[in-house]
């Protein structure tokens, strides 16, 4: 049998050393709860930007094994509102230099993202977002169906589908990266800086003294903390319940799936709201897709099958050539979603506890930007300007950052 | 309202344009049902209301949700705890609503004319249940869904009301605007029968 160029052979090797799982010490200046992308990035920037290294990252399972291991690795910054564009664009700029910063081949590939429009209202919303992006200095353009087909020839732009493609927004700088590599890159840097990465260490409670938290109780003993930074994504509510701090979060299963390895066929990233699809082709050749969020609250890390079926129908509808690609594996993460589909970052009623949650489906792409701004927030004890609009108080004042409405799919 | 002239305005079945395609399916006979007067009855099942309505419509109302009983010229389908669909092939819609509503009102209930809200297909044949099972997740085995049962459920992506007349004889009601989709779905499903 014939032997074309072997795929997968081109994946770079990992470093010989990543991190050493530490034993918890009695006390740290900063305890980061949650060893996912956000927690690790925050640790890295605490060390790098602020010289704070007496830090522990507590992970209840295996490091970066939550949403960081389960996402579809889309990176883009073409959000509608100024506040969102600010944090995501900051993240994207960091992504563009992250390989050097981390000294790790994270396979950041800027292949562009198409957000398809299928209805007249989709078109209006898309134009609105493109124009806002441009004024915010974010690369964005509107493409007609023919131009969509030029960027991604396998998209069915003909009129014979249920919701024909009317055009798309295109952000050329959007891309994908290898999620494990990213997490491990941050972990390795944090480890090198002397930060303790502690796995299989679940927070079971907090020790408090008035308006301050003095430490965390864990399955591996009590740990005193100068500052606590929560980066627990879907499990944030569990921690906040321990602190008695309410937050408008709902945790839902979000499923994703991959195909087998395929010859290159899909050069970019395509997202569609009306015909619910977001798909890219990863480095080894597998198609990576995200499905819709399951409606009920769920911590089970598995979703309902009809969501996958619907996802496949949408995929074949938009990409007829995918018909005989095979679903190889599906899985689910737990996404914490807020009423306005924007994150919650910033202060809590406790002076020295800072909150980072509610990223919904947008957490991965924000990783370095959030880590940067959250580390600054933790270091200075006040919200960094980039995350300031995302405080918990916006639900009281009504100053929401509503990414539901006109801002395309929030993935 | 009895002084209305006999209607002469032409009536069109929502599936008229698909009649030929439906009849072309050999495995399961699919007939367009004639129009009926239909009201959506809302009524407290506990009081004397059901009996009062029964007296007007000429037959007892079904006592359990998801079951139906025969009326002299139609069906009484129980859709929920306090909801029935009552049909008549004889009454004029406006009369049917007026009569049922009058009886129900006295017992705190009400009836709304929904004659044109739904249209109906009759499916007959040994494979009728199999055909439905290609796009409906409801347990349609004759033992689970015998004559006398009805159910509001999904056929493909459309809500439908299924009625079991017999093992080989089922009826489906579907909202008028979804009827074309449901018919296309069934015709397509029947290909491999």
């Amino acid at each position: 049998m014939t032997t074309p160029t072997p795929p997968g052979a081109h994946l770079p090797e990992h470093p010989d050393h990543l991190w050493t799982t530490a034993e918890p010490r009695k006390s740290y200046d900063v305890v980061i709860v949650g060893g996912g992308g956000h927690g690790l990035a925050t640790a890295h920037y605490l060390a790098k930007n602020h010289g704070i290294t007496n830090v522990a990252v507590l992970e209840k399972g295996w490091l970066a094994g939550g949403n960081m291991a389960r996402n579809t690795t889309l990176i883009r910054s073409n959000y509608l509102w100024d506040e969102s564009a600010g944090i995501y664009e900051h993240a994207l700029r960091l992504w563009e230099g992250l390989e050097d910063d981390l000294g790790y081949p994270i396979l950041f590939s800027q292949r562009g993202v198409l957000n398809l429009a299928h209805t007249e209202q989709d078109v209006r919303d898309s134009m609105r977002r493109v124009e806002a992006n441009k004024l915010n200095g974010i690369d964005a353009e509107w493409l007609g169906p023919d131009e969509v087909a030029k960027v991604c020839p396998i998209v069915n732009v003909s009129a014979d589908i249920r919701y024909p493609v009317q055009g798309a927004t295109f952000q050329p700088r959007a891309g994908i990266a290898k999620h494990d590599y990213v997490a491990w890159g941050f972990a390795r840097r944090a480890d090198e800086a002397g930060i303790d990465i502690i796995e299989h260490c679940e927070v079971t409670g907090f020790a408090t003294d008035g308006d301050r938290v003095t430490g965390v109780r864990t399955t591996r003993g009590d740990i005193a903390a100068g500052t606590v930074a929560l980066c627990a994504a879907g499990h944030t509510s569990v921690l906040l319940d321990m602190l008695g701090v309410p937050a408008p979060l709902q945790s839902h299963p979000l499923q994703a799936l991959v195909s087998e390895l395929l010859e290159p066929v899909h050069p970019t990233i395509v997202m569609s709201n009306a015909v619910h699809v977001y798909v890219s082709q990863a480095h080894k050749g597998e198609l990576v897709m995200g499905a819709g969020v399951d409606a009920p609250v769920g911590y089970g890390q598995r979703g309902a099958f009809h969501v996958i079926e619907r996802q496949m129908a949408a995929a074949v509808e938009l990409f007829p050539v995918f018909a005989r690609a095979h679903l190889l594996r599906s899985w689910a993460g737990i996404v914490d979603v807020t009423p306005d589909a924007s994150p919650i970052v910033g202060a809590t009623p406790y002076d020295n506890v800072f909150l980072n949650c509610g990223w919904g489906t947008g957490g991965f792409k924000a990783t370095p930007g959030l880590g940067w701004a959250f580390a600054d927030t933790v270091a200075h004890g006040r919200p960094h300007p980039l995350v300031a609009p995302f405080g918990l108080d916006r639900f009281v004042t009504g100053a929401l950052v509503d990414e539901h409405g006109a801002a395309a799919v929030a993935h | 309202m009895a002084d209305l002239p006999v209607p002469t305005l032409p009536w069109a079945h929502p599936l008229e344009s698909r009649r030929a395609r439906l009849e072309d399916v050999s495995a399961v006979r699919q007939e367009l049902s004639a129009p009926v007067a239909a009201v959506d009855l809302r009524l407290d099942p506990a009081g004397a209301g059901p009996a009062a309505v029964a007296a007007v419509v000429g037959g007892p109302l079904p006592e359990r949700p998801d079951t139906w009983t025969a009326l002299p010229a139609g069906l009484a389908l129980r859709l929920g705890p306090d909801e029935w669909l009552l049909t008549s092939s004889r009454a004029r819609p406006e009369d049917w609503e007026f009569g049922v509503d009058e009886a129900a009102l006295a017992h705190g209930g009400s009836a709304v004319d929904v004659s044109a809200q739904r249209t109906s297909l009759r499916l007959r044949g040994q494979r009728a249940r199999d055909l439905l099972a290609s796009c409906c997740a409801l347990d349609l085995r004759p033992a689970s869904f015998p004559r006398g049962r009805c159910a509001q459920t999904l056929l493909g992506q459309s809500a439908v009301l299924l009625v079991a007349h017999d093992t080989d004889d089922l009826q489906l009601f579907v909202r008028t605007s979804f009827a074309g989709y449901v018919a296309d779905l069934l015709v397509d499903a029947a290909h491999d029968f």
Partner: protein
Amino acid sequence: MSRVPGFGRIDRSRTVTITVDGVPYTGHPGDTVASVLLAHDVHPRTTSVKYGRPRGITGAWTEDPTGLIQVEEPFPEPMLLATTVEATDGLVVRGVNGQGRLAEVADTARYDRRHHHCDVLVVGAGPAGLVAARAAARRGESVVLVDDRADPGGTLTGTETIDGEPSPAFVADVVAELADQPEVTHLQRTTAFGHYDDGFVLALERRGDSVDGYGLRTRQRVHRIRASRVVVAAGAIERPVVIEDGDRPGVVLASAARDLLHRHGVLVGREVVVFTTNDSAYAAALDLHEAGAGVRVLDARDEAPRGWARACAERGVAVTPAATVRGTRGEERITAAVTGDGTEIPCDLLLLSGGWTPAAHLVSHVGGALTYDETLGAFVFGEPVAGVEVIGAANGTLALADVLREAGGAGAPHAPAEDDGAPPRVLWRTEGDPARQFVDVARDATVADIARAVGAGLTHPEHVKRYTTIGTAHDQGRTSGMLAIGILAELTGRPVAAMRPTTFRPPFVPVAFAALAGRERGDLFDPVRTTPLHAWHVAAGAEFEDVGQWKRARHYPRAGEDMTAAVLRECAAVRTSVGIMDASTLGTIDVRGPDAPVLLDRLYTNMMSSLKVGRVRYGVMCGNDGMVRDDGTVLRLAENRYLVTTTTGNAAAVLDSMEEWLQTEWTDLRVRLTSVTDHWSIAAVAGPRSRDVIGAVFGDLDVSNDAFGFMTWQDTVLDGTPVRVARISFSGELAFEVSVASGYASAVWARLLAAGQAYGITPYGTETMHVLRAEKGYPIIGQDTDGTVSPHDLGMSWAVSAKKDDFVGKRSYTRPENRNPLRKQLVSLLPTDAATKLPEGSQIVGFCADGRLPAPPVPMLGHVTSSYHSAELARPFALALVKGGRDRVGEVVHVPVEGELVPALIGSSVLVDPEGARRDG
């Protein structure tokens, strides 16, 4: 040829021809691509993904990690296993080594679904499954039995004896008995691939490819099975022992060689070394010997099982206990096995058996916990899962006699016990160079890779999997997963039982996207909702737009007209004479009951209880957050009865929300809601001549302004059919809406058209409607609003009751952000050049005095929500949401359009007939 007479269940009376890498081969029905090639002494050969090493096949079914092929004919399909693709005439395939190729054209084959409900679903028609299915059927239960292979029988080779008869006869008897039961559905070639909650199992049936196309036959069908009880009899997967250069072609699982022999009559090698850690490989040794191969067994255990050793001795098969295989020799194919003591045993086939891993997948899918079985060297089901039963090899029960007993209970069939068997030895690998010990041949990952991962600080199986990529290939680690855990345990000095195996995820086997999509493609992807007038619109040449699931006529272009021209014409007709539009898609809800006024007062921002019977009022509904959710007209039909109209897209959401309030919050309110959206068909007749048209059609109606004022309704009759006419205007013109039961819609429409002919009545579509309403400053919910807009923002404070204590959303208006003077407000925007149509969605910036945008980020004032050419104004105009917009009326701002800054004047949102003289006239 390696085809052995007397073996195999292929149909030798017929031949099929397949083409592999351009070379035609003949085989027989019952063959797979792999068995055809092996029968021709061609060993499927691929190259490994990383090191370029030659690879053959090692399995005989889905467990094979290497024998990937690309189907080219009859239709390209990527990454299938040569061992599982049935050989059909005309099949063309080629080898691949890692990436498949998708077709460049759409797949025309049909895929569909079938739902099943049963008492018992049995997965696997091997001995365990057959017996369990039979027992259930005999108990009178309804049974669905699925099995992934072409024939039932599972691992039965035909050499066994069950209830005193040869196993094939037993299988045939059971199958025949099941076939006689109407409550039994038995599906072969059907793989259960996913198990979800409440006994929901998905199974893929392969119904056959055809070179001649599919016609109407479904190629693959997903069976969606809902079972009260799921019996998993899916067998076990044999795993090899990891040895140096154990990836060389000619190194095969013992069970695979046996399967190929008994199913396909193919003898995979002539000089065979069997290296085993357990008893099961002895059957393979003896069978291959009987088929003519020279066989030698090396058993890793200190003592060979006595019964098997005796049988081997009788047949002249040498057995060496306490012996291992360390590695292999050869190039493209194995030439010798190297034993633990360095001896090279020449051979052309090395069979490995490192024990059996129960096929745990379907239980793992529903969260079934696995526990490590020290004896088996594998994870088995720990705690029972409600409604799930695991039997046979899937449960770690390997001996046939035990399997039958476990599956059949008291009435189980009987098979002779294997005498003098010995327990397996758990052995993950033998001594050797870790860099040449392949754990996952599909990913080219070795023991050295695992060691490197451990050295990097990783100890969790999930981390090691990701570092090494073991178990991530298309086989998802069927044979390698357990080995990787065992070796990781060894390298980290921890017990295997302390390891958590990586979770099995659906699907059990790869499933084509199209099979999962089923028939949800094209028009069946999502329901197309149409009005009764749809056929008329089509005949009239309408262009349609999708609004939710509805198809709505957008405009009716005449020859040579583009949309702009058509819409200008339609608009002019409405403003100067009369137009007609199908408004049947509007949601309508019949609201009845003594408390209907109370409910509507709570749901609408304005007062509905004060509405008089016979009158109509426009209303706005908000969410608790105070933002506009929907709007529409409300007709008071009677003291206790209203007809509520919603927007097309929100009809279902509004009804659901109203029901939610009623059923869960205000349960004391005596109100009932009935959707009558599809019952009523609505024709909007608008324009100065609309009164003439309505008057002509409905002779019983006094349409004079005095008798039939604006925002009132009346019932009438047309040829015996009740009709409701309401004076409602969404265009600002004199206008009527005619509602009739939808079966009569076409007839009424025809009458209106006929009566309007004298006035040149013009059908108009949604685009025209949008222009007309925009000229009046009427917002479209969802276009001029986006979930962040309050009624006040829309300039509709007049529709927000100050009298009511409360209504949904009211409290939110006193939040700080709602009192922000810089909230965005709906205004009109007139490009000062009177020529540029501002693209909808354009952002608005402050006036840039130097005519140039500052550097980003540029502060934005708002955006254009609606923009049209106006026939009435003879210029383009727009609506926009602008920060503090009403205070900016008269200001000129800039709108960036394709690199140019277009100046535009902010004005009031009402541009045509601000006094409302026309609609009131």
